[in-house]
C-alpha cells in the first residue's frame, strides 16, 4: 500500500498537482477571504471572464501583426486590473451594491470584447482563448507552478503587511478616511492584488477550481467562525482538503479533480449553513430569559385603574 503511495507521489505531474493545490489554498485564504468580507464574491468570476477578453485581445494583436510581442497573458492581466479599477471606482464611498454592479458591467464589457475579437482571430486560435478558462490540477506544467508560487508569495506578503488596512476599508471606509488613513489607496490595492491573483490562478488551474475555491470556503468559514484569524486558517484547511480529496477521488473515479474539488468546496458552504442553523436552534437557553417582573404588573394594574377613572377623550 505504502509502496504504491510512494510510487504515485514520485510521479512529477502528481507532485505538481499537490504543490498547485497547496498554493491555490493559500491564494484562496489570502484573497478569497477579503473578497467575501467585502461582499464581493462575484468579483472572482467577473475577473476570470475579463481575463478571457484580455487574452482574446492579446491573440488578436499578435495575429493581426499590430503588436507582435503582446502575449495573451498581458492582455488577461490588463483586463483583470481594469475590472478592479472600475469596481474600485464604483465603491470609493464604501458601498458594496455599487461595486457588484460595476463587476457585472465590466464583466459584460470584456466578454463582449472577447466575442467581438474572435471574428478577427484565425479560427484555429480561438480554442486558445477558451483554454484560459479550462485548466486542471493534473495538467500543470513547471511554468504554471512558478507563476502560482510567485502569486501566492506576493499575495501573502501584501496581506501580512496590510491586513488591518484591508479590514478597516471593508468595515468602515468613511471612518478610515476621516481618521487620516489613505483608505482609497488600500481599497484599490486590495482589489488590484485580488484581481491579479485571480487572473494568474485562473491561467494556472482553470476557472472552475478558482471560482469554487476562492468563494465557497471563505463563505463557509465566515458563517461559522467568529475570529478573523480563525477564518483565514479555516479557509486554507477547507480549500486544501477539498483539493486533496478531489485529487484522490480523480484516481478512482474517472473525473477532473478540479470539478470534484469544486463540488466539495461548494458542499462545505451548504454544510456550514446547516451547522449554523442547528447551532442557533440549540443555543436558545431557557434559563437566560429574565424572571417575570412582579412590580411591572403592579404598575400596569395601577395605570389601568387610573385611566379607567379619568376617562379619555381620544
Amino acid at each position: 500500500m505504502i509502496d504504491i503511495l510512494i510510487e504515485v507521489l514520485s510521479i512529477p505531474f502528481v507532485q505538481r498537482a499537490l504543490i498547485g493545490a497547496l498554493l491555490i489554498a493559500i491564494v484562496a485564504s489570502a484573497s478569497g477571504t477579503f473578497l467575501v468580507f467585502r461582499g464581493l464574491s462575484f468579483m472572482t468570476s467577473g475577473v476570470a471572464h475579463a481575463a478571457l477578453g484580455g487574452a482574446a485581445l492579446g491573440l488578436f494583436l499578435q495575429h493581426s501583426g499590430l503588436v507582435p510581442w503582446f502575449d495573451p497573458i498581458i492582455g488577461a492581466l490588463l483586463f483583470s486590473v481594469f475590472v478592479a479599477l472600475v469596481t474600485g471606482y464604483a465603491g470609493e464611498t464604501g458601498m458594496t451594491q455599487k461595486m457588484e454592479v460595476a463587476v457585472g458591467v465590466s464583466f459584460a464589457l470584456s466578454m463582449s470584447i472577447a466575442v467581438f475579437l474572435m471574428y478577427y482571430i484565425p479560427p484555429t486560435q480561438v480554442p486558445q482563448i477558451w483554454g484560459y478558462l479550462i485548466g486542471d490540477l493534473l495538467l500543470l506544467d513547471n511554468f504554471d507552478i512558478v507563476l502560482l508560487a510567485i502569486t501566492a508569495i506576493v499575495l501573502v506578503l501584501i496581506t501580512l503587511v496590510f491586513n488591518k488596512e484591508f479590514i478597516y476599508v471593508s468595515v468602515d471606509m468613511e471612518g478610515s478616511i476621516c481618521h487620516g488613513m489613505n483608505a482609497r489607496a488600500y481599497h484599490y490595492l486590495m482589489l488590484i492584488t485580488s484581481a491579479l491573483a485571480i487572473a494568474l490562478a485562473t491561467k494556472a488551474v482553470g476557472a472552475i477550481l478558482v471560482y469554487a475555491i476562492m468563494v465557497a470556503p471563505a463563505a463557509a468559514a465566515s458563517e461559522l467562525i467568529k475570529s478573523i484569524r480563525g477564518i483565514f486558517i479555516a479557509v486554507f484547511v477547507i480549500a486544501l482538503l477539498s483539493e486533496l480529496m478531489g485529487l484522490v477521488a480523480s484516481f478512482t473515479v474517472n473525473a477532473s479533480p478540479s470539478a470534484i474539488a469544486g463540488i466539495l468546496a461548494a458542499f462545505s458552504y451548504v454544510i456550514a449553513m446547516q451547522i449554523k442553523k442547528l447551532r442557533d436552534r440549540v443555543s436558545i437557553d431557557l434559563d437566560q430569559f429574565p424572571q417575570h417582573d412582579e412590580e411591572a404588573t403592579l404598575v400596569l394594574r395601577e395605570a389601568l385603574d387610573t385611566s379607567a377613572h379619568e376617562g379619555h377623550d381620544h
Partner: protein
Amino acid sequence: MEQQFLFEVEDLAVKYPNGELALYNVNFSIKSPTFMAIVGPNGSGKSTLLKTSLGLIKPVRGQVKVLGYDSVRENKKIRKLVRYVPQRDRIGLSVPLKVKDVVLMSRLLKKPPPRFASSKDNEMARESLKRVNMADLWDRPFPELSGGQRQRVLVARALAGDGPILMLDEPLAGTDHESQDMIVEALGDYRSEHEVNIVMVTHDLNPIHTLVQDVLLLKNTVVGVGTPCDMMDVDLLKKIYGPTAKVVEYAGHKYCVTHDSGVDRHD
C-alpha cells in the same frame, strides 16, 4: 493667545451627489473649545456639513475652516485632529471584528502600517469601553451586538483616540434610553476631563441640551446659532420642524417636542 475657531464657515454651498442643493448661504463661526450640536430634521444637510468640513465633499461655493485649516486644501491636517463616528449603519458587519479591534481603530488608524497595538493603546481602549459600560464585551464579535451596544462601542472608539476634535454623526439615533444616557454621560464626563471639542450631529437636541454650549440649527442653511436655551425658541424651531414644533419647560430646562423622530441618512 489668539482666539481659535473650531469652525469658520463662509458663504458655503454644497450639493448632494444627486445634484440637489444640500447647503446654501451658510455662514457661522464657533469658538474652540466647545461642545457643539448640529441640529435639524432629516435631509437638512447636517451630515453633509460634517463631511464637507472633513474634506469628503467639496463645496461648490465658499469654504469651511476647521481650527484654521481649509477643508479642501488642508484636509489631511484636519483628519489628523479628528476622531470620527459615522452613522451606525455605515459600519459593515460582514467581518467578525472583535469589540476591542473596533475601539482600537481610532488609535491604530493614526499610526503608520503595520499598526500594532501597544499596551498603552490597549489600556486606552479598555478605559474608554468602561466609560460606556461595555468593558465586559472586550472579546465579543462586534456584529453580534445590539444596535445600542454597537453605538456605544463606536463612541468608545472616539473616546479612545487622540486628537482635539470628536465628530459624531447621529450617535443617539435608534438607541434605547439606557444607551442614550450612557453615551451622553460618557461624552459629558470626557469633555469635563479633557480639553477637546465635541461636535454632534443630531435631529434631537433634548438628550444633550444640558451639556452643549453651542447649537447650530440647520435647514439647508443656518436657521439659528447660539446657546441651547436661545435656540429653544418656538418660532425658530417651527422654521425647521414645521408648525407642530412645541417647547416644553421641565425642571428649569426647555425641551423641544416635534413629530420628527426619524433617523437621518444620506448615501
